[in-house]
């Protein structure tokens, strides 16, 4: 009996200790590995279509990768370089043209629902001109590749060394929705750096595995 | 198969030592002795071979040490050599302490586990209790009645000589 009382006291004491500690633990979170993370984006942008089918170069949109540590997400104005003209899929436009021909009327402009979001974000009117009365609202993409804050990654060095985008981002040109391909765990980085020192495409590369390359 | 055991209980350390010796001398082979504490000279008296556990201790200790020193060398000098305070890649002297500790750990743990194994001890094992007092203050000498020279009367005589407390015959059904 007394042993049981003892046990109870011990349990209660450790409970109190946990209570003292637990409230401070909010926000303590393990940096996890999010391989395969493919969040739904505000606009269903397809890398398969753009990078795969249409063969748009990665650096066309992510041009900052050459000059900045961040590859960057293209500004809406970059999208408009093409989507000023292309407002819907080829099929949808064809369909409308056929319908119009049948109905003997002028084809109506077709805007795909996803591109509509882009135009709305830019505050464009029906004729794709800026309408000052419409509010502009930047597109809030969900970041797919998140490194912990204690890791410094710089796209410049990798692009300059000739590392293909796919080496880390995987077969983006086949992804309908962007997905984290690699684990992005430290070992994955380190092993690539080790191999890179043997050269990338025959080009000598200096990929340090010093801790201070990424952590400072 | 049935096994017959002839058991004599004794109360005194000298008696059990003496009777064991006497029984052996008389040509009986002792199946086992049950005692509340370790008795010196009994293993010789009943002709038990020295334990081979020191070999386990030595070999596994050696193995653990060898593995550890290799592991330390491999991690520090080969798998990912990192410059720590300008120390040489192969800092063998610095590996000695951990190697020693792992050696002791391996040797000690493996010896104990080997002991459990050879003595067939495990948590919750059902004990072969001859008498609850053998863990308290009584000694038991067990002879198995398979021996050709087995003669209960002769035995009884020897037992009496050494102040036997009780004699018991036990039959056990055992799977071989």
């Amino acid at each position, binding site marked *: 009996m007394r042993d049981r009382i003892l046990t109870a006291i011990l349990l209660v004491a450790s409970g109190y200790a946990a209570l003292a500690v637990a409230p401070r633990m909010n926000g303590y979170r393990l940096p996890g590995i999010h391989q395969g993370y493919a969040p739904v984006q505000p606009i269903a942008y397809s890398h398969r279509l753009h990078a795969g089918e249409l063969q748009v170069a990665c650096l066309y949109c992510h041009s900052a990768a050459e000059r900045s540590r961040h590859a960057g997400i293209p500004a809406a104005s970059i999208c408009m370089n093409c989507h000023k003209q292309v407002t819907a899929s080829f099929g949808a436009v064809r369909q409308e043209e056929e319908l119009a021909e049948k109905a003997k009327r002028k084809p109506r402009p077709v805007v795909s629902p996803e591109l509509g979001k882009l135009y709305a974000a830019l505050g464009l009117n029906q004729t794709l001109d800026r309408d000052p009365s419409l509010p502009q609202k930047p597109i809030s993409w969900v970041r797919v590749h998140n490194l912990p804050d204690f890791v410094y990654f710089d796209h410049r060095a990798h692009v300059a060394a000739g590392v293909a985008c796919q080496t880390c981002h995987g077969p983006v040109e086949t992804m309908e929705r962007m997905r984290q391909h690699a684990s992005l765990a430290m070992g994955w980085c380190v092993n690539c750096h080790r191999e890179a020192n043997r050269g990338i495409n025959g080009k000598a590369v200096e990929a340090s595995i010093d801790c201070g390359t990424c952590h400072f | 198969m049935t096994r017959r055991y002839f058991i004599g209980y004794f109360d005194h350390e000298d008696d059990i030592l003496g009777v064991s010796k006497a029984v052996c001398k008389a040509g009986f082979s002792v199946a086992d002795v049950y005692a509340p504490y370790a008795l010196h000279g009994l*293993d010789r008296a009943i002709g038990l071979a020295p334990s081979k556990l020191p070999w386990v201790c030595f070999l596994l200790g050696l193995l653990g040490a060898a593995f550890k020193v290799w592991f330390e060398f491999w*991690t520090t000098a080969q*798998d990912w050599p990192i410059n720590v305070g300008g120390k040489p890649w192969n800092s063998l002297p610095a590996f000695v302490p951990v190697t020693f500790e792992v050696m002791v750990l391996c040797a000690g743990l493996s010896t104990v586990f080997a002991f459990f194994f050879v003595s067939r001890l495990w948590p*919750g094992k059902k004990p072969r209790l001859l008498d609850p007092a053998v863990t308290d203050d009584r000694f038991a000498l067990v002879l198995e009645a398979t021996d050709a020279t087995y003669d209960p009367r002769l035995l009884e005589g020897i037992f009496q000589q050494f102040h036997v407390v009780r004699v018991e015959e036990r039959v056990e059904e055992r799977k071989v």
Partner: protein
Amino acid sequence: MATVYSELRRPLIRGEKSTGEVTRDISLPLERAPSLGWWIAFLAAFSALSLGVAAVAYLFSTGVGTWGLNSTVGWAFDITNFVFWIGIGHAGTLISAILFLLRQRWRTSVNRSAEAMTIFAVICAGLFPLIHMGRPWLAFWMFPYPNTRGSLWVNFRSPLVWDFFAIATYFTISVVFWYLGLMPDLATIRDRLKPGLRRTLMNFFCFGWDGSYRTWSHYETVYKLLAGLGTPLVVSVHTIVSWDFATSVIPGWHATIFPPYFVAGAIFSGMAMVLTLMILVRNLMHLEDYITPDHVDKMCKVTLVTSGLVGLAYATEFFTAMYSANRHEQFIFMNRAFGPFGWSYWIMTSCNLLVPQTLWFRRIRSSLGAVFLVSILINVGMWFERFVIIVTSLHRDFLPSSWWSYTPTPIEVATLVGSFGLFFTLFLLFLRLVPVIALSEVKGVLSYGRRLKQGDEA
């Protein structure tokens, strides 16, 4: 067996005990309800433990800044307590292993509790390296395990990693050694119980021990082997602990004398703690027949010898510093004795060198009260020895610009108190849960010093 027994030998166990009496004497307290004294002691210990738990919870939730440390003195109470407890933890293995190998049979009365003391002290010691960390939840990074960081291993050149392995090994081996000794006794207890849950439990813990001599024979071998392993282990552990300091560059730490000095100090403090505890246990558990003044006398002599060793080390350190012509080294020792923390140095020397000199006198050695007092003072002195080594060396090292002082906060003091609470809580539970005296070993030495009389009877 034509053995000649000396008449000069006095029995190790008093009271002409028979084997059965021993069993009863030791087992009965476990079967009775705890005494009032036990409850008072337990409540005190548990309160201290709770205080420590609260302090550590606060530490974890707020940060190491709740201790009085600073940029210059990065270790103080934490590592002092660590070395103190690990030192305490040396006597158990010493008594069970080294004295076993040296065939000092008087050890049987005290080895069980000394070993338990070792284990509990190592638990207390092991806590401090953990809680002293800035991010204790990452303590597992001390262990080399394959990981996703490209397999980033640990720094095997770091004495802290050595420490980690040494303490882990020492703890494991001590527990195994202790448990091995406990198995036959648990069987004894089991056989005194009526069939039921407790008996099943006891049988579970004693691995179905039945006293077979084949087992006893292996058991003896294993015990000897573990004693053989434990002896260098116990030396290595405190050697490695001393390397935490000796391999550094800090004057006052960087000394080749540290390993033997620390080992001697550990045995010294451990013996003192054994004395403290044995005198307490003797009175608390009424074991006057088993722990006799002879035991105390022998342990006092060991204490006296190690006190001399420690004193020699103190003197050698000073001599080395003076002889070295190393300005940093010389200063640190002047500072140790006459600097701002000089008082701690003088507590240390008086408790560790002067007080034990009283043990030269039989009258002191035979007075349990006096020995108790001496042992407590030695414990205090040995705590201060570690404090002196750590704090006085750190607080004034190479660059005078970074000299600083150190004052503990109440949180640190509470943590120290808590470690004593943990130690005594565990020890008191130990007194209640397992035989305090190694039954099977004591039974083996009952005849010691009394055979002649029996022979007369025969």
